[in-house]
């Protein structure tokens, strides 16, 4: 049986998801705050994908989703702030498994098209998919959502004021 111990460091601002052979692997935090995943297989080579959880504004129906939040949170009063991270990672590669394989990866600082993962230990398939993808749409949509919220508040405030004056 071949085993793999995967360590992900400096991942605080991301929510990485690891899939090995298209199966999501559970990540556990160790005492240093890094994420650790253990995997065992009879295979000698496995497919691995490390990616970040997509933003809610990165969908076709983002405004409908936002409106749902807006209504449920009573005009956005009880809403929580939206994630500002517009950087995404979609790494896909292969790992050769041995009896005891250890791979130690570090998330690099976010920069457009910069390398996302650096290997500190083990054999890592460093290919083209190992880079940050900057999604400008997310920031744009976040700004639209905020503008909508503040404009609606202004309209409500004006409405209440006019009602109080002319009632």
């Amino acid at each position, binding site marked *: 049986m071949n085993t793999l111990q995967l360590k992900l460091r400096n991942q605080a601002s991301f929510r990485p*998801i690891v899939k090995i052979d298209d199966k999501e692997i559970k*990540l556990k935090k160790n005492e240093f705050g890094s994420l650790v995943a253990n995997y065992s297989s009879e295979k000698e080579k496995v497919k691995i994908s490390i990616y970040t*959880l*997509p933003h809610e504004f990165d969908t076709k*129906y983002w405004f409908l989703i936002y409106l749902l*939040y807006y209504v449920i949170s009573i005009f956005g009063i*009880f*809403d*929580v702030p939206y994630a500002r991270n517009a950087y995404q990672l979609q790494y896909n590669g292969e790992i050769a498994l041995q009896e005891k394989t250890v791979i130690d990866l570090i998330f690099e600082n976010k920069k457009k098209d910069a390398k996302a993962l650096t290997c500190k230990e083990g054999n890592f398939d460093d290919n083209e998919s190992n880079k940050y993808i900057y999604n400008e749409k997310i920031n744009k949509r976040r700004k639209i959502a905020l503008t909508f919220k503040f404009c609606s508040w202004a309209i409500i405030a004006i409405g209440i004021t006019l009602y109080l004056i002319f009632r």
Partner: protein
Amino acid sequence: MINSQVKRRIMGHLGAILFNIGIFGLILCFAAAITGLLWIVIFLFVICFAFISVVCTLGLALTDAGFRNFLSGAFKISTNEKFLLLLEQLVKAFPWVAAITGILLVASAIFLFFDKDNPSSKSRLIALSVFAVIFIIAIIVVPIVLGGKA
């Protein structure tokens, strides 16, 4: 269509919103509970304040008319009409607020559970379990206190 990863994030976000509304409800519940106990608190506070003032000034405070007016005014608060009306309204609303808050917090826990890998959702779930205990205590304690008063 929305993929399952985004669904997970949406669930977490909805859970967080319901959590925030639930906390507000919890504060309202405690406002009802505290208002019920407020007259006791005010009474004890005024007695303590009067006792300390009289002891520290060797009884001279009682000779001051302003101090005597303050004391009698403070004792009148517990029989104030507006205060009693507020107390009545809060006590009337308590079962509704408590029920809605309970439902919201349970719904929030269910939504957050789908996003439990997110550290902030996890901490909200931990907070929810603490609030659940406080909430149950409030449900048991408040009717006893208010019932006893009635």
